[in-house]
């Protein structure tokens, strides 16, 4: 893994996180914003496979857990996004995924990611919220993530594909 690839992945995650909390908060819908970090992880999963995406998901989740204004128990987004990276990476097949596959993967990943995060919250009572509130949040965030997919996934996947070693052509 070259330093350039690590730097590009880290840069994408940092940019996604900062835009998510500082820019999209103005467009929030019931306080829910598109989870750009999750979209970056899914983009990595579809181009680079489960192993890389799970590690990237863990790091992106850790940033979400620790960067202000986060106040939940650290490790919850790390767990959720590592699982998302792994699961979305398993979808990847030979060749380029079709647009339909990408949208379906994003929807499924967003559902899985937000649900894993919500479930860890239920277990830890952090904070104690009811199931209807959780469900509404999960559904709205899936909608947001799917809406943002056409704008975020193509550049992210292009970036990871450009940085991919030549073995994909072998």
């Amino acid at each position: 893994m070259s330093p350039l690839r690590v730097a590009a992945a880290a840069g994408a995650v940092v940019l996604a996180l900062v835009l998510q909390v500082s820019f999209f908060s103005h467009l929030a819908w019931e306080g829910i914003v598109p989870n750009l970090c999750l979209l970056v992880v899914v983009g990595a999963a579809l181009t680079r496979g489960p192993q890389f995406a799970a590690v990237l998901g863990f790091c992106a989740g850790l940033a979400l857990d620790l960067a202000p204004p986060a106040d939940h128990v650290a490790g919850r987004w790390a767990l959720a996004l590592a699982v998302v990276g792994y699961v979305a990476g398993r979808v990847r097949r030979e060749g380029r995924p079709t647009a339909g596959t990408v949208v379906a993967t994003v929807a499924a990943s967003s559902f899985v990611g937000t649900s894993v995060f919500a479930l860890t919250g239920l277990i830890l009572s952090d904070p104690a919220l009811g199931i209807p509130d959780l469900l509404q949040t999960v559904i709205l965030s899936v909608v947001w993530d799917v809406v943002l997919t056409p704008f975020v996934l193509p550049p992210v996947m292009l970036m990871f594909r450009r940085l991919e070693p030549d073995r994909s052509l072998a």
Partner: protein
Amino acid sequence: MSRRWGRDPDRDRPKTSVLVALVLASLTLITLDSRTTSPLDPVRRAVGEVFGPAEVATATAVRPFTAVPDWFRSKDSMKQDLLDLQAENSDLRSKIATDDYARNRLAEYDGLTAAAKDLGYSLVPARVVALGPSQSFSRTVTIDAGSKAGLRPDLTVVNDDGLVGRVLRVTRTTATVLLIVDADSVVGGRVGRSMEVGFVTGRGVLGGDGRLDLELVDDTAIPGKGDAVVTWGSQGGGPYVSGVPIGEVTTVYSSLRETAQRAVVDPYVDFGALDLVGVVVPSGTASDRSVIEADGTLR
């Protein structure tokens, strides 16, 4: 055996061990951070020092564009606003003239304002630069004032409408604020009219439905609809100073199962549109910016 996972074993076989390791690492972090004095606090602060300035820069860059929707408000809609406000104003004026109860309440508001002036605290102005996403289920914001501006944890944050929240942690240039609508937030509240004390808890909902729950300590006291709720504050003014307006009682109900009276409080602050806030600091705090003194002057 090695071809179990797909056509090309070197490429498609996922390393399950990686996922297991990451899950275990996450669980370790969760366990460590669940303790009351978290060993991750220094890490949080270090990450905040990096991300904080980035958030401030981004918020500053997008601020001119967030005002754009206001430009498109037509003169007609403003005229309608003016008419609405005039109607509301005359309605309120007639209520004050006719209603003894309302007149009493007005006197109490005046008292509260006077009390707020006498507190002897100063305000450090700050702007909200980042809002925690609802997917994280905690209602927190980042503001662009930190330890350099004289902030420290457990300070009260207000805006021109009322109580916003309290400072959770600070970095050099930013601070994280827990909003009172967060489900983990508990504020000592006092009903302005009867002086009964209770606890105001958040529901974790932002925006128009962002209500608070008030539970009075004395189960015989019944808060009235429309009563103002203010903070009762604690020793040394932390985390909440006393006498800051929180909201207005909208519904009162008593449950048979629980002994206390419960009321729903509509907060004065619109948490969906937070921008300029003030952090209550002791008078004379050294700060990197102008501080608003208790008498309204800038220092």
